[in-house]
């Protein structure tokens, strides 16, 4: 008995100290001060090296306007969304947050993001229309300033394509043909894999095909995950998996790294940030890869989708929205800031003028032989199809993983899996009370 008691006390003491740390952590997220005088802002971001970029602000324009920004490094993607929403519940969200484009509707729907259209409207013409539109959600408001984008491209092993006599596919039909021909010539190799773990990749491919997953008409949402364009994409990849001409295992695993590094998989449908991934995943094949535009659905088309990309947003909890918006605009449009972002954070800027200057005048080290890498990339970025995100992208993305995982494994019907994603997404929206048009 005394034993258990003591242990319980130790446990409680531990709980107390943990609780205290948690409280301290909560408190430090608060960066609000009196209205007059110097302003200090807190910024949640996952971009590496952001503190160095922010230093430029704090020593330059920020010093002049007496606006100091403090960076709090965060985990990327969905984890941060949850954290922002939780902090917002306590009215303690930071002034500035980094958010992926597809997460913006979720944040806006939770009333976490402030409308900064008055402050940042001047920046509009620095970005491609399709990119800017993602931050307005099709309304008159502006909820964020675009930071980086991920236009999709086709990466392939130049040497192995030559060895097997393969041509770089310009249409998806040719892509399928290339996969089949490779299987004939080298049965143990695959052109690429269909990864059920990467919802963003599939979303980008659907976007290229012209899919609009979430649209609004009047006071109602329409969910089109199961639309004709997406079905075409699902059918195409499902067919290749069923035929056995491409692999069906997820990406970003040790196996996948090895497959890329040893030439077991000789191509990758990816985005502009691929050089960074390839550098770590396939270090032995540096200089053997080349980049080309994504294959098209018909030969006379020239569109791409996007995979990844994020923006800087101001929260409704910020006491200094104007100052925060000023910083967000500077960060994503100023020449020096973008240069530093590219150098320190390795991002591909959304700002069109920055895509060809400074850090992007030379190709990435991994693609040093493809001198026009970034010229080509900027050209491809211009062809990005508009995207349409809704308030529960997170649900659709999870449902995608759970539905397409078994479908890829069993090489079964991908359109049935797609229908499940559509149904799950609509059911979740209706459960929350959104008006959904049937």
């Amino acid at each position, binding site marked *: 008995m005394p034993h258990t008691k003591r242990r319980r006390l130790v446990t409680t003491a531990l709980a107390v100290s943990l609780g205290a740390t948690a409280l301290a952590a909560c408190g430090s997220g608060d960066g609000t001060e009196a209205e007059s005088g110097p302003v200090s802002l807190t910024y949640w971001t996952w971009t590496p090296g952001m503190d160095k970029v922010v230093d430029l602000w704090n020593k330059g324009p920020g010093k002049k306007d007496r606006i100091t920004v403090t960076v709090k490094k965060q985990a990327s993607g969905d984890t941060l969304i949850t954290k922002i929403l939780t902090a917002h519940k306590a009215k303690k969200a930071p002034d500035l947050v980094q958010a992926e484009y597809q997460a913006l509707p979720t944040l806006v729907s939770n009333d976490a993001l402030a409308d900064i259209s008055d402050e940042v409207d001047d920046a509009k013409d620095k970005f491609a229309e399709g990119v800017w539109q993602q931050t307005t959600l099709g309304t008159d408001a502006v909820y964020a300033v675009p930071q980086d984008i991920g236009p999709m491209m086709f990466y392939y092993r130049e040497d192995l394509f030559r060895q097997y006599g393969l041509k770089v596919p310009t249409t998806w039909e040719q892509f399928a043909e290339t996969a089949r021909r490779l299987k004939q010539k080298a049965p143990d190799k695959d052109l690429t894999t269909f990864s059920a*773990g990467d919802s963003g990749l599939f979303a980008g491919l659907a976007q290229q095909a012209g899919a609009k997953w979430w649209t609004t008409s009047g006071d109602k949402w329409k969910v089109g995950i199961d639309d004709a364009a997406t079905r075409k994409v699902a059918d195409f990849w499902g067919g290749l998996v069923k035929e056995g001409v491409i692999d069906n295992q997820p990406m*970003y695993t040790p196996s996948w790294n090895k497959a890329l590094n040893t030439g077991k998989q000789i191509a990758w449908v990816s985005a502009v940030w691929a050089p960074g991934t390839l550098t770590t995943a396939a270090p032995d094949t540096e200089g053997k890869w080349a980049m080309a535009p994504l294959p098209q659905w018909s030969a006379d088309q020239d569109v791409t989708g996007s995979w990844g990309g994020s923006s800087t947003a101001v929260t409704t909890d910020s006491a200094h929205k104007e100052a925060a918006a000023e910083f967000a605009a500077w960060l994503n449009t100023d020449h020096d800031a973008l240069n530093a972002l590219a150098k320190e954070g390795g991002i591909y800027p959304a700002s069109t003028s920055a895509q060809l200057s400074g850090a992007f005048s030379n190709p990435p080290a991994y693609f040093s032989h493809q001198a026009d890498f970034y010229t080509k990339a900027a050209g491809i970025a211009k062809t990005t199809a508009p995207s349409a995100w809704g308030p529960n992208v997170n*649900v659709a993305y999870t449902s995608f993983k759970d539905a397409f995982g078994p479908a890829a494994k069993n090489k079964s019907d991908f359109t049935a899996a797609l229908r499940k994603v559509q149904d799950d997404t609509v059911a979740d929206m209706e459960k929350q009370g959104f008006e959904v048009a049937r």
Partner: protein
Amino acid sequence: MSGSTSRRSYGVKGAPYGFLLPATVLFALFFALPIGYAVWLSFRKVRVSGLGLGSGARKEVWAGFENYTGAFRDSELLHGALRVLGYGCIVVPVMLGLALLFALMLDSEKARLAPFTRLAIFLPYAIPGVVAALLWGFLYLPDVSPFYFVLDKLGLPQPDLLDGGPLYLALSNIAVWGGTGFNMIVIYTSLRSIPAEVYEAAELDGATPLQVALRIKIPMVAPSLVLTFFFSIIATLQVFNEPTTLKPLTNSVNTTWSPLMKVYQDAFGRNDIYSAAAEATLIAVVTLLLSFGFLRAANRRNKQEATG
């Protein structure tokens, strides 16, 4: 004079409460309150109006038992529970069986290098669950695993351990590898506390070492076995680390593989903390019922044995 006596008697009377106070306050603040809040949340839900954009479009409202009926109707939660049941049916008997076997072997007089072996078997327990799962994940992946390399060289069949039935074995293996050492130590410690007279008596009666093990040692460590069984059931119901870590490596583990993964997914993947709270409450109740039910059954048996 009388004042001081009365004060003293008051002090003596109040003392236990004074001593209790810190623990009670801490218990209320960091245990009862969060649980109460979770239960409260489980009866709430979010109501969105119209497009759900802009301020005031999202309200928290009373949901009654809606989240609970939803959880009962959600087949994924039940499937998760069944998957965990299957997993537990492998883990618990194998792990406890091995733990008991190792403990008996270490306790036998013929054991050599006992301290080293004990440490070696215990060591995996010191490795964090996520690290262990990652480690085994690498060993299960055909393309990077040395085992598959050897199987390939020997021309033997190479089963896919991250799929179908073998997936359960793969997951159980991680738990057994990590947990056997701890349970072995618990059982071994209680084996060491059996008085030497009992063995002497057994020896005089001509019992073989096997008979000693079966007739004396195992019945005498029964309370430890009950304890380890109890811990194992709770650990099984709460399995989360292993499937979560293996999930990105395979198409076969979904985001709601175990009930706790479903709770996590609802709370942090779908941002629906209300359903997650209801599911968490359900899981807690089931865990309580199962573990207390088991303890009760074990106690009743002990009493019967004592009287009978």
